[in-house]
């Protein structure tokens, strides 16, 4: 397949303090154009450090990071931040503007985008995250999920090539979580950008094209969600939870029900069981 590499991590290591432990240890991976990659791992596995390295909020100690052909360093960092948009965990601590439209404008203002263009993009991106009715609402009147959707719109407004969600759902209630996953799905389809979602919730990786599992600063596994769901014991060992569907599939196999693949959701599992049933 002739896909364009958008992000390259080449043997990247990182530590916060000179003598401190390596937070990332020789990490290498590629991310392609239009691809959705989930990075998963327990707290402290180094997954969030990857996000910060990707847009130059941190610089690697060893190795190099290439984004869209440019090596991330102090000279390119501002260009790279245009290509790599990021949504953080805490909905409150990334809301800069006095109102929703001011917040979406903030990134564009920083890049000197003319006012008329800004107005247009605000309308467009807020519609994309279904927040167009909240143009002049103040942040303390929004729910966590709404604030995160505004944060996504703010990033989309600068038309990045990669969107990173760094545990963007971790502080939300289930409703907010659903809103965000829904929004992310829409956007991935409509905007055609590369998506990196960082999470510790295996439910949130189901739709990703590829999963990178982090453990102790290293890549533990690079695979598809389907394959990953088969590795039940191993996941538990590195502090992750196995989704219900995968657990049940596993148990059914032990009972001698010959299920072929790991199911990703209820419907797939029911379908598999149905096939088995009609064969008997």
């Amino acid at each position: 397949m002739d896909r364009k590499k958008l992000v390259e991590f080449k043997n990247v290591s990182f530590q916060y303090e000179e003598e401190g432990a390596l937070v990332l240890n020789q990490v290498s991976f590629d991310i392609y154009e239009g691809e959705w990659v989930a990075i998963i791992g327990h707290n402290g596995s180094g997954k969030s450090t990857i996000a910060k390295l990707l847009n130059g909020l941190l610089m690697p100690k060893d190795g190099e990071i290439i984004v869209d052909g440019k090596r991330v360093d102090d000279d390119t960092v501002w260009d790279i931040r245009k290509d790599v948009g990021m949504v953080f965990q805490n909905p409150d601590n990334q809301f800069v503007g006095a109102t929703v439209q001011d917040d979406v404008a903030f990134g564009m203002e920083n890049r000197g985008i003319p006012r008329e263009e800004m107005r247009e993009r605000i309308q467009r991106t807020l519609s994309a995250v279904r927040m167009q009715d909240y143009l002049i609402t103040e942040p303390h009147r929004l729910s966590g999920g709404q604030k995160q959707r505004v944060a996504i719109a703010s990033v989309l407004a600068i038309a990045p090539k990669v969107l990173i969600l760094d545990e963007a759902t971790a502080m939300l209630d289930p409703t907010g979580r659903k809103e965000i996953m829904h929004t992310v799905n829409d956007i991935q389809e409509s905007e055609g950008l590369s998506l990196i979602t960082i999470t510790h919730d295996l439910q949130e990786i189901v739709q990703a094209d590829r999963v990178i599992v982090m453990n102790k600063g290293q890549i533990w596994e690079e695979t598809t969600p389907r394959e990953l769901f088969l590795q039940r014991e191993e996941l538990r060992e590195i502090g992750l939870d196995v989704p219900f569907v995968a657990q049940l599939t596993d148990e059914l196999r032990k009972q001698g029900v010959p299920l072929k693949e790991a199911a990703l959701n209820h419907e797939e599992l029911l379908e598999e069981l149905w096939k088995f049933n009609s064969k008997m």
Partner: protein
Amino acid sequence: MEIQFKDVSYIYQENTPFAHKALEHISFTVNSGSFVAVIGHTGSGKSTLIQHLNGLSLPSRGEINIGDFHLSADGKPKNIRDLRRKVGVVFQYPEHQLFEETVAKDIAFGPKNFGVEQEEIDRRIEKLLPAVGLPKEILERSPFDLSGGQKRRVAIAGVLAMAPQVLVLDEPTAGLDPRGQREIMDMFYQLHQEQNLTTVLVTHSMEDALAYADKIIILNKGQKYMEGHPLDVFKQAEKLQEVQLGLPEVIHFLNQYNERFGTSLTYQYQPMPELAKEIKKRLEVGSHE
């Protein structure tokens, strides 16, 4: 301690233009020693309800009895400090309340305020540390140097050190990774059983409600929407759907399974292998007909 709400309403900023009903005509009983899950969306009145459990808020109407304590609109009872000692509240993101120089001092802060002797506090801390999964060495460190998960445990220890009889938990696992979530909930459940606590868990997680609670109370827009045993509450999928609440995954799956295969499997707390066996049995029976 038994907790009893009798027709409790709470109105924020009553008699102002900003007045707003947070709780309306709420009645329920939590038996001593039981584990109750309170479920509802953000803004359903859960947080307000919690504040009534230790007298941080007093009902605008109706009355509350917690053990021998009586709360009503007539003003704070004199022994409110006793109530606060006996009802330990672990608020959401409890690590935000840490402030002392050392972990030991922070854990001791609550009991000290309630006049517990230092010797007794030390004894409690010694027993508590293994229970919350913290090493002894941590006691002399600054709470601000710890990892997120450790901070949470310290904060929880600070509440448990008050030796409460009622434990109120407001989404105690929010923001933790799956392993952390499981460890914290298991810890609370063990404490609940060992010390015969009365536990009120406020949660968004239907899975936790199913796994731990022996009663569920569902709040919606400040009113009690449902109340009952988890298995009974979760039988009413449509009623839950009306207020945008889902089912625990296992029950949801069995419902779908039953619909597709025309069976009537029910969830009775079977462990996963047991469940798989049952499903397989039904499949075999079905195919012979």
